[in-house]
């Protein structure tokens, strides 16, 4: 029996938890050694005190307000987290269980309080709390991300579009650089011809020798330069077209010699021209240039010779085709140029109309050929298609809108010889470029006209009032003060019988540009030869 008591006492004192018993009044009547060791106090210090005396202030408060009432109501409490305060002031996190023990009559005998060291558990709890806080924060951030997802997609798309636009701009700049290089090269060659011809002309003139050869060379160089600028303007769709009713069959037939000459002996030219072909309204010179361009491309695609077919036909583009290819449905005249050459890969075909794209080696082409064709066709409200495959030739088909007006007027043979003035007619020349003005005036005087010069619109209107003899106003379109069209309107108000002839290199202004294409408007494309100028002026004064 004694041994059993000894054993139980040992168990009580050395159990892995603190034991405390309180009497009915709440005062401690017994405490084990472990509890006393945890507190760092002698057992005699503990007996007679209350359990809550060894809690921190919050513990005291909660013990009184929560756990004491709880135990009174249900007779026990389990696993309440509290902090013991040791004698040295430090804290020990504990879990506390308590249970009432009552006698047979139901009176409270004592309360058994069991205390577990919860240092580790409390640390885990803190870590768990911290982890939960992090998870909640991450979750909140995720939800926020989801909420702003649309916004961020829009931002990303916008950024992407910006970068793509920047890329396109960079590509454009690269292309412009490529073009500029090509043009500079060509121009230098042409200018070299003009310069050397002029130098030689100067020397030979001093010696009184025959100079006609050099004059011809200089004119040729300048003419080629003018043609280049024409091609540039065509590409940019800013050339001033002078559309007229054309029969494509006649035009192709008229080009026969030129084409044979251009294509050489290796390439056989065939024409398949439809009967009763409709007329088209187009700039004849440009259209000829287009066909020539396509023929040259075809020739270059057939280095070992082949066959070139130029075909014309009446054609109807229906609604479905029009919607698919962004072209107005209706009646068109088709002109197709087909070769039996090397053909194009799909990659090359996709870029065929890109400005500056060329498969030719540097210096041999600016890449403007096909894009110039494309520009002309689009400017003429037409349509163009390409069929090609590697090794199977290329077919380029142009559709130009049918013209239903009066038939083609006449051929231009009259322009072969300069037509002169009768010495009594007066032309008012308006041009803001001093040199061009002087030169134009000189050419007209050479042709036998009186010339009044004006450098701007205002000066021109003054001259009109001062010189009643002026029969023709020959004006530049693009001028600093008022443009040629406005000047013409003002002039016609004063002199309704006045004849008007416009000249322009190009016009950026679409409205101005379009009005130059109106029927009844007379336009002389810059730069014009003496013959062209003479013919236009004569035609107008006689009209």
């Amino acid at each position, binding site marked *: 029996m004694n041994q059993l008591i000894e054993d139980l006492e040992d168990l009580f004192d050395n159990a892995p938890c603190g034991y405390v018993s309180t009497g009915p*009044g*709440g005062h401690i009547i017994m405490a084990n050694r472990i509890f006393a060791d945890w507190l760092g106090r002698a057992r005699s210090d503990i007996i007679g005190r*209350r359990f*809550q005396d060894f809690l*921190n*202030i*919050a*513990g*005291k*408060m*909660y013990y*009184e*307000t*929560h756990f*004491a*009432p*709880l135990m*009174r*109501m*249900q*007779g*026990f*409490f*389990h*696993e*309440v*987290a509290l*902090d013991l305060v040791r004698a040295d002031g430090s804290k020990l*996190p504990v*879990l506390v269980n308590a249970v009432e023990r009552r006698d047979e009559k139901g009176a409270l005998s004592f309360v058994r309080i069991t205390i577990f060291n919860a240092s580790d558990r*409390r640390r885990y*709890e803190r870590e*768990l*709390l911290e982890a939960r806080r992090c998870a909640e924060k991450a979750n909140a951030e995720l939800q926020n991300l989801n909420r702003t997802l649309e916004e961020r997609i829009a931002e990303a798309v916008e950024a992407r579009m910006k970068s793509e636009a920047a890329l396109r701009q960079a590509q454009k700049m690269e292309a412009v650089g490529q073009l500029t290089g090509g043009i500079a090269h060509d121009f230098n060659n042409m200018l070299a011809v003009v310069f050397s011809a002029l130098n030689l002309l100067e020397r030979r003139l001093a010696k009184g020798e025959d100079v006609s050869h050099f004059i011809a060379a200089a004119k040729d160089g300048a003419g080629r330069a003018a043609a280049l600028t024409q091609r540039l303007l065509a590409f940019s769709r800013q050339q001033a077209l002078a559309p007229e009713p054309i029969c494509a069959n006649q035009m192709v037939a008229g080009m026969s010699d030129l084409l044979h000459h251009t294509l050489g002996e290796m390439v056989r030219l065939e024409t398949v021209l439809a009967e009763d072909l409709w007329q088209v309204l187009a700039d004849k010179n440009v259209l000829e240039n287009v066909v020539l361009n396509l023929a040259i491309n075809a020739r270059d695609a057939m280095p070992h010779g082949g066959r070139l077919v130029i075909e014309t036909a009446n054609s109807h583009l229906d609604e479905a085709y029009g919607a698919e290819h962004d072209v107005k449905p209706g009646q068109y005249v088709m002109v197709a140029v087909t070769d039996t050459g090397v053909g194009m890969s799909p990659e090359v075909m996709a870029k065929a109309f890109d400005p500056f794209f060329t498969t030719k080696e540097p210096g041999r082409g600016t890449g403007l050929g096909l894009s110039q064709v494309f520009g002309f066709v689009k400017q003429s409200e037409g349509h163009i298609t390409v069929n090609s495959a590697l090794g199977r030739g290329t077919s380029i088909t142009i559709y130009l809108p049918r013209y239903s007006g009066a038939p083609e007027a006449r051929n231009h043979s009259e322009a072969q010889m300069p037509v002169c003035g009768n010495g009594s007619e007066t032309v008012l020349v308006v041009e803001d470029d001093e040199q061009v003005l002087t030169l134009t005036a000189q050419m007209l005087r050479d042709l036998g006209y009186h010339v009044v010069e004006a450098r701007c619109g205002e000066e021109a209107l003054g001259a009109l009032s001062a010189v009643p003899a002026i029969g023709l106003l020959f004006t530049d379109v693009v001028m600093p003060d008022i443009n040629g069209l406005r000047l013409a309107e003002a002039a016609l108000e004063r002199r309704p019988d006045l004849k008007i002839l416009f000249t322009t290199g190009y016009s950026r202004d679409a409205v101005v540009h379009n009005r130059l294409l109106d029927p009844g408007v007379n336009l002389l494309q810059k730069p014009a030869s003496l013959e062209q100028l003479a013919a236009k002026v004569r035609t107008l004064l006689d009209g």
Partner: protein
Amino acid sequence: MVFAHGFGCDQNMWRFVWPAFAEEYRIVLFDHVGCGGSDLRAYDIGKYASLEGYADDVIAICRELDLTHSIFVGHSVSAMIGAIASIQVPELFDELIMIGPSPRYIDDDDYTGGFSEAQVHELLEFLDDNHMGWSQAMAPVIMGNPDRPELGQELANSFCMTDPEIAKRFARVTFLSDNRADLDRVTARALVLQCHEDVIAPPAVGAYVHQRVSNSAFVLLNATGHCPNLSAPEETILAMKIFLAGERSAAQNVGP
């Protein structure tokens, strides 16, 4: 007779007391908003940031039940809540029974509240800090309870339903309030019931309340702790009955 529970409890704390008055009085028991079985959605942070918010609820309950000249029994912080309600609408209560009241828990120059400011802040920090240790540890106590399931259910509706956030705010308003000035304005006849060894509201605080409330009696119970209604219901009931019977002399005999 309206019974109002204090911080940490709900109307269950009156279970040993109210039956003693049920024959003589109409008994009104309720849980403060945020406690026990109250509708937690009704909790408004602004309204319940001061004891006036709780006092307004007491007034609303009395109006709803058409109570006047009744008896208010408040434990701990509710003793002050009842005092405030009685000042605002004096005809509500003829008698105030204040069990363990404290108008101010923090010591002041010549006032002893029982806590230093630092101790109260330690308490509030413990609340903020010990979220899980507190609420999680409490849950098994209540929900578990395998021995007496009938109690478990009952208590599940009280303690464990207390929202930890609301408990924190209730502690804050309870322990930081200073309603000493209100005591002078109490006109109802009052009884201050004070326990021995009450760490929440020490006897000096009870004596202070008795001194400031003009028409009051003071009884120092033999019970210890802060909840004589639970630990010594018989003694508490007796003191209340003597007071209500108008036996003021008897009550005062027990006083200081």
